[in-house]
Each structure stands twice: as structure tokens, then as C-alpha cells.
């Protein structure tokens, strides 16, 4: 065996940090393009929060206020949370479960792709779509709902909501590892829709029945929406650090679950 001969071009196959960075960029770029062209994804993820906002925030209740905050402003926070959650869950879970279940991830794993680039691309794409959704809500609110706020508030709200993409991307990765390619979308909806309702993303939190208010306290979208509402002066009395802590803990748990799935995949084989 001429293993010496085999080693001869090893020197030329070490990647520079710039080249590695370029792979991360490429991976993210194509993940974004892939989802952007996927009508299933854009139609449900982008259009639902925007449609709801237009209907309930601009057409129906534009003149009303909830606890001193005007409805068009209030609903940017809640439908923003709803949109971010959808973009992140669908952006990570459904792609991952189908890539895993139908063999595409194996082709990628057999290539020299840095494994982390694949996950990073999904998270970055989810954040970009989250940004698009929140900006669209702002734009509509500004143009048609008379939404005005200081730049710092705008930046805070946008930043909080987009950062809120992370816990749901983590949750999506965990779901992607434990659902099949066919069951993933249904499973996501089964979690996403009730969770949104119970967290007060559709019906303002104060109007929810008492039982649901209790349940909401353990739901991550409730905490994200309260952070967002806090910025526009409509938050609950809890400290924002509590919300951040809950979201952080939730993210860590989901990443832990995703890691178990990742390791299980390394050892096991799928169709």
C-alpha cells in the first residue's frame, strides 16, 4: 500500500478561513433562494401574518387601542412574533426532516461541507425571512395604520423579534430530527397554531381565558411577544430579563434535543 503516495497532495487540501467563510455564505445564500422560490414556504410563512395584520390591525380595529397602545402598533409585536415563529419553524424543521429522510443530507455529509454550515444556513435564512416579515408589518402599519415610533423603539422591536427567531429555529432543528419528511409540516402546524393562540398572538393576551393565561407562561412565543410588547409600552408587569431567561433556557433545551438527533443520525442509517 503506497500510503506515502496518498499523502502527496494533502498540503493543498487544507481550507483557509476565508474559504470556510465563503462556504457558510454560499450555503446561506442558496438556502435562502431555495425557500424564497418555494411557494409552499413563502405563501404560508409570509402571507399569513401579513394578511392577519392587514385584516385585524388595519381594516377592522385601526382606531382602537389596547391598554393605551394603538392596535396597529400592538399587533406588529404579536403578529411579528407569529410570523417569526412560523418562518423559523418551517424554515428549519421541514427542510431538515425531508433532507434527512429522503437522502439529500447524506449526499451533503459525504461531501467536504463543514457540517455546521448546513445548520447555520437554515438559521440565517430563518432570520432573514423574520426580518422581511417584521419590516413588511412595519411598512404596512406606517403607510396605512398611522404607526409612528422613535427610531430607537423601531430598532429595539425589530431586533427583539429577529433575535426571537433563534429559539424557534432551535425548536425547528429538534423537530426536524424527530419527524419524518411527510409528517413534519402537519406536526409543525399542530404545535405552531395552538401555541400562537395560547400565547395571545391572535387574541390579545388580556382577553384570553384564565386557564390559557396560566398555560401561556410556559410557552416561548408568549415570552417573545411580551418582550416585543414591552418595547411599545404594552407589556405585562414581568421583568424583561425573565422573558429572555425563559427563551434562552428553551433554546438550550431544543439544541440539546437536536444534538441527540444529530448524533443518532451519525450512527444510524436512513432510507
Amino acid at each position, binding site marked *: *500500500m503506497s500510503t506515502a503516495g496518498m499523502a502527496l497532495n494533502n498540503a493543498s487540501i487544507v481550507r483557509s478561513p476565508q474559504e470556510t467563510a465563503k462556504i457558510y455564505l454560499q450555503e446561506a445564500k442558496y438556502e435562502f433562494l431555495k425557500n424564497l422560490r418555494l411557494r409552499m414556504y413563502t405563501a404560508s410563512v409570509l402571507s399569513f401574518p401579513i394578511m392577519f395584520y392587514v385584516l385585524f390591525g388595519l381594516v377592522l380595529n385601526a382606531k382602537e387601542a389596547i391598554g393605551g397602545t394603538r392596535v396597529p402598533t400592538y399587533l406588529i409585536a404579536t403578529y411579528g412574533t407569529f410570523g417569526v415563529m412560523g418562518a423559523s419553524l418551517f424554515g428549519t424543521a421541514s427542510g431538515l426532516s425531508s433532507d434527512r429522510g429522503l437522502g439529500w443530507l447524506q449526499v451533503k455529509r*459525504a*461531501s467536504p461541507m463543514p457540517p455546521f454550515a448546513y445548520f447555520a444556513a437554515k438559521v440565517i435564512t430563518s432570520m432573514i425571512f423574520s426580518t422581511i416579515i417584521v419590516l413588511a408589518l412595519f411598512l404596512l402599519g406606517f403607510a396605512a395604520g398611522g404607526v409612528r415610533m422613535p427610531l430607537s423603539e423601531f430598532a429595539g422591536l425589530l431586533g427583539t423579534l429577529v433575535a426571537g427567531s433563534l429559539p424557534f429555529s432551535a425548536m425547528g432543528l429538534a423537530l426536524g430530527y424527530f419527524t419524518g419528511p411527510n409528517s413534519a409540516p402537519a406536526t409543525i402546524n399542530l404545535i405552531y397554531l395552538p401555541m400562537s393562540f395560547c400565547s395571545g398572538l391572535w387574541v390579545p393576551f388580556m382577553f384570553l381565558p384564565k386557564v390559557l393565561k396560566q398555560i401561556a407562561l410556559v410557552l416561548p412565543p408568549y415570552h417573545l411577544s411580551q418582550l416585543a410588547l414591552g418595547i411599545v409600552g404594552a407589556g405585562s408587569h414581568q421583568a424583561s430579563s425573565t422573558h429572555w431567561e425563559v427563551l434562552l433556557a428553551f433554546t438550550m433545551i431544543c439544541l440539546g434535543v437536536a444534538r441527540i438527533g444529530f448524533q443518532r443520525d451519525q450512527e444510524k442509517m436512513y432510507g
Partner: protein
Amino acid sequence: MVETLEHSSPLQRKQSQGTVASLAAVNKSYGGVRALRGINFQVRAGEVVALLGPNGAGKTTAVKLLLGLLQPNGGKVRVFGGDPVNPENRMRTGAMLQVGRVPETLRVREHIDLFSSYYVNPMPCGEVLAVTGLEKLSDRKFGELSGGQKQRVLFALAICGNPDLLFLDEPTVGLDVEARRMLWDEIRQLVQRGKTVLLTTHYLQEADALADRVAVINKGEIVTEGTPAEIKAQTAGKKIRCITRLSFDVLRRIPGVMEVKHDREAVELHTAQAELAVRELLSRDSQLSGLEVSSAGLEEAFLALTQDGSRRGTESN
């Protein structure tokens, strides 16, 4: 293209005796099912070797072990003298696997662009498109391609990194004759550049058309190994068809006859030595008529090799 040729040939000469990839006494089970049973198998530098076997023989498992996508339960898997999961090894290998669904909204060019970026010395995109005959389709979305075109894209992704070692898992499965021949031509072009190729197939014809060496695998074991000609010689008997008065019992006792069956008014004999059998037949039955001697088909020969195994076994993918 000329440059690539010049570049690869000294390397190939240096490695021509070397083992590029190997499975040594490798066992692999899924649950209670043994997919590979103590398999020994080598891929040598610069050769095209085919793993030939029916569905569920363990071909895909062998490839996935060599790609580091699976870990063996026993034995050693080596690629370029090291563990297949080494990033340096992945940089020097390309793989075409059986995939259920490829992201459909990306264009051919984009798929190639992304995979090329994983490698340090990729082939230029234009060259990949030319070799795989995808130039005119480069702006099509993957989902808009035909089955044969999709396979060619997967092939393009396998070769775009300019790898030294190429794994092709059933590259032409499900393709029509024309698409299959087209892919064969592309694989041959690659081979001329001095690449080492391991391909799996359940078509003997494909192994015959492409491979320098064939290993027949069945039920997780290598049944036999050799050049395509040797494999065919081992198995290829002759088929004799004639109308005769001789009884089945008599026919079966003719030396070299393996099988006798009715074919309408005639009988059909399978034999290793046609000349011997024909001489016997003619001397025993002077009224024998309608004599035909033909080669047993390649597929029949292959069936004979793997005969009793093809019915059970596990799905290989």
C-alpha cells in the same frame, strides 16, 4: 482539459499499485439483519471497479461505509490509508448516492456552484457542465428536469470537486437505455482523466461496459471477483435448443448439462460445454432437428451466480 490530463497521469502512475480504499473483514448489521458478512474488498488506484449484485445484496451499505456515512460493527474501513470521515479524505472523494428528493427550486448551475465551493480545487463550473452535458440545462430548476437529467446533475455534483476517488451508487438505476448510455459515456470520460471509480450496479451489462474489475456481491458476501470477461466465462454457459426424441432423463445425463426444460415442441439445455453436448445429442438421436446453439444471456449468467440469494436479504438502501 489537457492540463488536467497531464496533471493526473503522474499521480496515477505513482499510485497504480496502491490500494485507495478497502474494506477488511467488515461486518455491518441493521437491527438483526446482517447486511455485510465479513466482507473483504479493495479499490486500487486508477481502476474502475464494479460491485455487482441484486437489490439488498449490501452494495449501498459498502459504499456508505467507505464514505464514512456508516460505521461498521466489525472490521476495518480505510480510504486513502485513513478513516473515511477525515475531512481531507472527503475533499478527495466524490459521491453519487441514491436520493429521494433533491432541493427542487435551485437551478442546475446553483447546485454545482454550491458543491464546488466545498472543495479546494474544484473543476470550473463550465467544465462540469460540459462533461455532464448539462450546458443547455444549467438555468433549469432541478424540479423541472427529467429522470436522466436529474441523475446527470447528481453525477455533476459528485465530480465537481475534481476528486481522485469517485463513488457511484447505482448511477443509472431507473434510466432508459439512451439516458443510461449517455451517463456511461460521461463516466468513461472521467475515467480517462485517471480517476478511480467504484460503482455499484445490478446490471451486469453496466459492469461489463465500464469496469476493469467486477466483484459480485450477494447476501453481504463477495461471491466472486475478476475482470468482466472472467466473470462472464465463469458463468456463461451455452443454450442448446433442439427437437429430439430423447427423454429428459437421458438428456440430463449428458455430461456438462446443467438444466433441461421444455420449450414448446423442443427442449432447451443449459450446458457449460456446448460442443460435447451437441456431439452426444447427435450420436444418440439421428433424427434430431432444429438445432440451435446460443450464448446464455449476460443477465442469465449473473442470475446463475447469485441464484439462491436474490430472494431474501435486506434492502440495501
